[in-house]
């Protein structure tokens, strides 16, 4: 008897099917992968299972029993845990409080000490290291991920739903994370994992269910399939990546940082420690490093969101130290943040409104004070066309961004920031959450930008992405640049050393 069976699940949003006759089954002790393009309906299916949405039709059997969860609390009490695509943590509470928040328990009084010990031992057991007393808001995205996983484990889930858990992890972290999953599997847990990386599916899963346009098109045993077959089922035709030729980078600097520092209030440590860096025209400069080592601060100092406390930044030959975010944007510095919900989107506003978030005060979108929504709408339509953005149902460009799938939200940002006017694109995790087709498209787009003589500062936790795209690779550790490698001399081993703070000579600096 399978642990979970979902049969003929159907769900429509204002008349448009997000799930149509979807069937999925998961055994005890199985890791089951769910694969599909952006907007295929993966998250919706999991939200139905977890009680966030009610299906329009179909049945769910859990441990042989017909169930229909009315709320996440209901699902949790049956032993289902879910880590969402976008985390649901309370920033102003500690890690500990977030984990025990709402976990109920029978006891009247919360035994925080015991809870803390329990969490630490869980963390120890699975290698999910976090400090229980730290505020969640001060954690990096990767660390927050670990908190989410701990939260589910703490509630003793038999079935774990993981919606794109690896998107935010480094290869090393992913490796550790897979160890965690295997251990959970060996203990008899069922796991549903959503990921866009085929290599991960091949490495970790027993079976794969593929969704396309809301329908479950294929169920495969991982051992008997290949990544090519998976992607063919997923997009309905074989993927034919065409690679752009790379042009040489010019000798002319686009952006240069001289001794740029940013002091952090906490513990007297520097968030950025005398960074010297030049990005040339026509270059993609990759920034590798474990998340939380100053990459975010670097991006924010360059884009003007934070003011550096020391050093000089110049762009295109002129100093921009005292320029505002907007002035820098109009000089050509655009920014794709790794935290799309916080930094880059106003999710309550529509696709159109988000599309002009940077340029609403300029022609053609406004004249003097008056907005021209018609022009903005056309811009949005162009972007939808070019990036293949799936809006929800009939609302089209009027869809509030929060109703769109994660990957499609990301595409809204990409199409806005990679504009004709952009001359330096600071791209942090630009392909996080994108399906393989879209990832390929973004990679080609970035290379095309480079070939047109524009520059890209690519910050990514995905080392493969860095290695395939970058002309040079700088590695960050504790707010410093440990070293810069040329495309030809870069290898995973060397970068790994730098990422751990080890320099060429072998010693820690």
């Amino acid at each position: 008897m399978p642990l979970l069976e979902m049969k003929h699940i159907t769900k429509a949003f204002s008349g448009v099917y997000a799930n149509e006759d979807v069937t999925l089954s998961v055994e005890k002790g199985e890791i089951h992968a769910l694969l599909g393009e952006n907007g295929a309906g993966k998250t919706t299916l999991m939200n139905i299972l977890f009680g966030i949405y009610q299906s329009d039709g179909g049945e769910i059997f859990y441990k042989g029993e017909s169930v229909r969860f009315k709320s996440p609390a209901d699902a949790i009490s049956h032993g289902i845990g879910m880590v969402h695509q976008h985390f649901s943590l309370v920033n102003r509470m500690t890690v500990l409080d977030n984990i025990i928040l709402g976990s109920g328990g029978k006891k009247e009084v919360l035994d925080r000490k015991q809870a803390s010990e329990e969490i630490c031992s869980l963390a120890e057991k699975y290698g999910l290291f976090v400090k229980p007393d730290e505020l969640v808001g001060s954690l990096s995205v990767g660390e927050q991920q670990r908190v989410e996983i701990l939260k589910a484990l703490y509630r003793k889930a038999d079935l774990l739903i993981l919606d794109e858990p690896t998107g935010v992890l480094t290869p090393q972290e992913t490796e550790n994370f897979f160890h965690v999953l295997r251990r959970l599997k060996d203990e008899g847990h069922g796991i549903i994992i959503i990921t866009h990386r085929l290599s991960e599916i091949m490495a970790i899963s027993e079976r794969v269910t593929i969704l396309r346009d809301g329908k479950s098109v294929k169920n495969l045993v991982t051992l008997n399939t290949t990544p090519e077959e998976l992607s063919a089922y997923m997009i309905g035709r074989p993927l034919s990546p065409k690679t752009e030729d790379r042009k040489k980078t010019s000798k002319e600097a686009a952006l240069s940082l001289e001794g740029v520092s940013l002091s952090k209030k906490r513990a007297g440590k520097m968030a950025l420690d005398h960074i010297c860096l030049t990005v040339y025209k026509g270059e993609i400069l990759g920034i590798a490093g474990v998340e939380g080592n100053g990459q975010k601060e670097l991006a924010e100092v360059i884009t003007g969101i934070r003011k550096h406390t020391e050093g000089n930044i110049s762009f295109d030959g002129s100093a921009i130290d005292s320029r505002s975010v907007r002035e820098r944007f109009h000089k050509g510095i655009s920014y794709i943040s790794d935290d799309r919900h916080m930094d880059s989107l106003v999710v309550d506003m529509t696709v159109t409104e988000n599309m002009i978030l940077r340029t609403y005060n300029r022609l053609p979108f406004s004249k003097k004070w008056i907005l021209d929504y018609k022009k903005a709408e056309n811009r949005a339509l162009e972007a939808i066309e070019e990036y293949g953005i799936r809006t929800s149902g009939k609302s089209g460009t009027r869809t509030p961004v929060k109703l769109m799938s994660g990957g499609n939200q990301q595409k809204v940002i990409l199409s806005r920031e990679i504009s004709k006017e952009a001359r330096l694109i600071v791209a942090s995790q630009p392909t996080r959450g994108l399906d393989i087709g879209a990832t390929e498209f973004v990679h080609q787009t970035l290379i095309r930008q480079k070939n047109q003589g524009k520059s890209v500062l690519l910050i990514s936790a995905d080392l493969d992405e860095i290695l395939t795209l970058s002309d040079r690779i700088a590695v960050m550790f504790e707010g410093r640049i440990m070293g810069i490698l040329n495309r030809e001399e870069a290898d995973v081993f060397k970068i790994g050393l730098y990422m751990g703070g080890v320099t060429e000579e072998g010693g820690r600096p």
Partner: protein
Amino acid sequence: MNHMKKWKAIEVTEIAFLSIAMAAILILLSGADPLTAGRMFFNGIFGNASGFGEVFVKATPLILTGLGCSVAFRTGFFNIGAEGQFYIGALASAWVALNATGVPGVFRIILAIGCGFLFGGLWALIAAILKAKLGISEIICTIMLNYISMNLLGIAVRTFLMDPAGSIPQSEKIDASVTLLRFLKPTRVHTGIFIALGAVFFVWFLMEKTTSGYEFKAVGFNKRAAACSGISVVKNIILSAVLSGGLAGIAGAVEVLGVQKKLLEGISGGCGYTAILITLLAFNHPGGVLLVSVLFAALEVGANSMQRQMGVPSAIVDFLIGFIVLLILGRELLTGKMRAKEGK
């Protein structure tokens, strides 16, 4: 979309039904016959021209203060201070109307209303700066400022603005040439209603059609994303607060120049607080503010008539308003949740 309309329709009839039932119970409790009371209620509103006109007289300050609140709420500035800004606006305009004798008729009216806007706006600016620069809660600040302004007005009508000929704390009568024209005599309807309607259009246009309204919205929904995109959060909070206070200030000026024709204590009738409810029920939409304001005003006029004719306490209306607000907001929360579930 269709479903949503259905939801709304059900809500409206349900809520109307529940409120009428509640009103009937209250009237019974106060020892009157609900049917006759109901007749008196509608008689008060539709029975004669002056009653009907009174609805618009009462709606005018509600519309203006309601719009004020809606502008501030857009950027997430929770302005509880419309009451105080109303007072300051009334005070400033009364002073101008009484003292700027060098300025002839219409120009003095314009100047007085302009000063109402200016000082109401400045009054809100205090709280806005404290919030934007120091992070002090605007809710607390504006409430405190309400008390201060109430007492400022109290001091004014006892000292420098007190009618030298009288003994009660109020100003002398404003010259007829500087009051707003009553163009529908015998009703008290005055040209202030056009100012209110103009403001409705202005706020709608600002919110929906201008870059400023767009910025307000972005800041209200996500300050961080707004800042990351180059929109100044501080500037927009301050701007929306000043505009909000200014609109409440105009309400005060219009009440002075159009209805009371002098400055006196308690001149707002609490409309600065009612405005908050109006905005909430209108979901910040200017057209909604207009509608709800007229509705609230009609309730008040009807209830006053009930009280005059039958001695049924008009406080029933305040009770009812509270009840309706709870019903609608509670309902909204509930259906909001249900809709999220169904994804509709």
